[in-house]
């Protein structure tokens, strides 16, 4: 019998009833994984950001945000809601209204959506929410952030633990007239389903091994093949037992442990890490800490991404042309002002969040100025997408501080308390 979403309660007695249910499903799912067959979908968490919270817009409640979708929210307690939405009945193939998952409010700015829906359906549902609301965005665990987690946390959780690293890079801007020229969120799904597969540098690799072995071999491999810098997903070993939690670049966390509580603890741990990084990015970019009585933003710093290999003229031209198209994954709006063959300036906006951003794009780097109120997520989404689609090996700075040192400073303070 396939698992049915109809078994999720719309009005549980309290959130712990949901935890217990997810715990049971986690155990069942983990047993299935151990036996190399799983009939129960894994519990997944999607970390979502409510972008208005730090910006100039009004903060909205969870029901207010979900009002614009067809979903119905039923409160379980002050910060926990059941989400009822349309989903396919696996037996009849008909659409039905069922509880698809639960939303927990971690802070006014961040929510977690817990679900046991199948991976593709759950991703599609969350993407639809994000695409149809300028209030919501994914969280963006770009490669430097995933690498930081690997270097400073995962690789120290024991050499005997099982680790997994997934790398993805696709140079979608290399070809001039490509039929699949505009990468969208579903591009991977399409090619997996036998769709067109254009010829361009494309790299997908998964390394699963003992953490100690992975650590010993990774640096050597990276130095000879740049796409191995484009980290897309990492497995974080569980603190409670076997298994772990797969964290993806777009803030999806899949529970491969047998404990939902451990899964939730890791989701909250990652939220705190990301929230700290985002807040600090914004304070630096907006210059809030130093501004005081002067116009805000004047002491803000630029955000700089440098490509390890300069882009070819064709790649640069295609990137500049397509990044500002309506459905492109970069989600940018603006007029590209040409300053030279491989240099443009854009005084535009983030098309998804509709917040202003000024960009310099050259064959060697991208410079972003985030006006006050523009969410740091815009920059982290840019970094993630540049590494996945433009240049696999990059260096990023916030002001004069490298992304790595920026993260390391956090590690020395509240981050360490969390581990």
């Amino acid at each position: 019998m396939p698992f049915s979403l109809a078994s999720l309660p719309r009005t549980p007695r309290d959130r712990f009833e949901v935890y217990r249910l997810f715990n049971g499903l986690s155990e069942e799912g983990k047993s299935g994984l151990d036996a190399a067959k799983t009939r129960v979908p894994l519990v997944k968490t999607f970390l979502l950001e409510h972008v208005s919270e730090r910006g100039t817009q009004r903060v909205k409640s969870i029901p207010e945000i979900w009002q614009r979708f067809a979903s119905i929210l039923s409160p379980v307690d002050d910060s926990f809601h059941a989400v009822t939405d349309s989903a396919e009945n696996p037996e009849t193939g008909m659409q039905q209204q069922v509880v698809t998952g639960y939303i927990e409010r971690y802070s006014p700015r961040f929510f977690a959506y817990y679900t046991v829906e199948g991976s593709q359906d759950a991703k599609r549902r969350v993407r639809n929410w994000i695409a149809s609301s300028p209030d919501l965005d994914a969280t963006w665990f770009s490669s430097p952030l995933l690498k930081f987690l690997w270097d400073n946390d995962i690789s120290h959780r024991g050499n005997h633990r099982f680790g997994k690293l997934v790398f993805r890079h696709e140079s979608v801007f290399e070809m001039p007239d490509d039929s699949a020229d505009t990468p969208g969120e579903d591009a991977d799904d399409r090619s997996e389903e036998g769709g067109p597969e254009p010829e361009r540098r494309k790299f997908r690799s998964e390394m699963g091994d003992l953490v100690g072995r992975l650590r010993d071999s990774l640096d050597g491999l990276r130095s000879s093949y740049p796409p191995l810098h484009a980290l897309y997903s990492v497995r974080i070993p569980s603190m409670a037992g076997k298994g772990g939690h797969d964290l993806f670049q777009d803030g999806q966390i899949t529970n491969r442990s047998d404990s939902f509580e451990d899964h939730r603890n890791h989701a909250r741990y990652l939220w705190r890490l990301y929230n700290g990084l985002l807040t600090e990015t914004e304070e630096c970019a907006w210059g809030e800490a130093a501004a005081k009585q002067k116009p805000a933003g004047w002491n803000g710093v630029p955000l700089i991404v440098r490509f390890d290999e300069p882009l070819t003229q064709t790649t640069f031209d295609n990137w500049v042309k397509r990044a500002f198209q309506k459905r492109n994954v970069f989600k940018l709006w603006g007029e590209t002002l040409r300053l030279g063959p491989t240099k443009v300036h854009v005084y535009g906006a983030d098309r998804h969040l509709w917040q202003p951003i000024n960009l310099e794009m050259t064959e060697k780097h991208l410079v972003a100025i985030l006006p006050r109120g523009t969410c740091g997520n815009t920059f982290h989404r840019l970094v993630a997408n540049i590494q996945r689609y433009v240049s696999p090996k990059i260096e990023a700075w916030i002001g004069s501080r490298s992304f790595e040192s920026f993260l390391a400073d956090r590690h020395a303070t509240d981050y360490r308390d969390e581990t």
Partner: protein
Amino acid sequence: MKPDDWIRDPVFQLNLLVWMSKEQPKEAYCVRPVFHEAGFEWMAIEQPFPFPVETAKRIQEINADEQIRIHLHPEPELILKRNSDQSALYFEAKKNSFWVESNTSSQARGHLVAAGSVFAEVNAPLQRALLVYVVPQAVSDPMRECLQELTEQLSSRGMNPGNSAVDGLSVEESEIHYHFDGPSRAALGIRDSRIAIMGGIAEDTDPSPLLLLYSDEDYHDKGRRGYYRRVLQNQAIAALLCELHRLNLGESITFTAARILELTTQGAFNFLGSNRRKSMELLLKVNVFNKIAEQWKDRSDGAVQMQGREITFSFPNEVFQADFLDWLERSKAVFDDGKPSMPELEQMDLGLSITL
């Protein structure tokens, strides 16, 4: 365009100075942040310098004498400050040098007085400032001689002018170099008499960094006269789009050009001199607001209304909202980047209204 022409452009010069005070990585700077490295940070931009009462009176007496003139409201282009020793750099950028007899000298006398002992009086707890003229390096010697002569003129009339320096800009091979005058080196605590601040300069590429300070003035390249205005307008349209995408149906929102400029300049608009503010407002009013009003005159049914300096949006339904925003997103070519004429300025001052 020859690379030498870039370093004479006042907007380029000023943006270069601001970038030199911005924190950036040593390995990947846009413009080498020499001033930031020396501990200086941004303090003011184009803010008129208010002389103390006694100084203002003395300047008025000297000006009445009609032998020399001292500008009573000098506007330094940029002031950077360093808290550790309470010092400041007071910048004025020029595309060329000038002589004592030229009209520009009254402004220079004003700057020299402002950077003197009155600077600490007005800007306490800052204790001193160095007046730095930034010019193409090729004309730095005559500029230095001129400032020396002006300083002597002021001292002989009982004024207390400040120290000055003349720093230069030059293009050498593929780099832009900043040349430090002796007093500048002392103020910054550096030994180098010149530093490459930008690399990769090529004749086919405009070396401008992203503009942090905007202007409605003509661009120096004849083929792209409206470039600076286009940057300002693009920012305004981006700000409008961001606000209008969040406007709920049935609600209305009203903008003035000044409000949009506050948003796009991070609030720095309010710190600019009044003439600059007025001409920037006029630019947005004429080239953006009026254009939107014209385009939607026959199809908005009151959803887009212009009255005096204000434009108000209220979307009656989703279809109209989607149509309007789609048009605004695709309408880059609609907005002319010419400079509005003076009659249009007068019209704006009269607050003439167009209701659609």
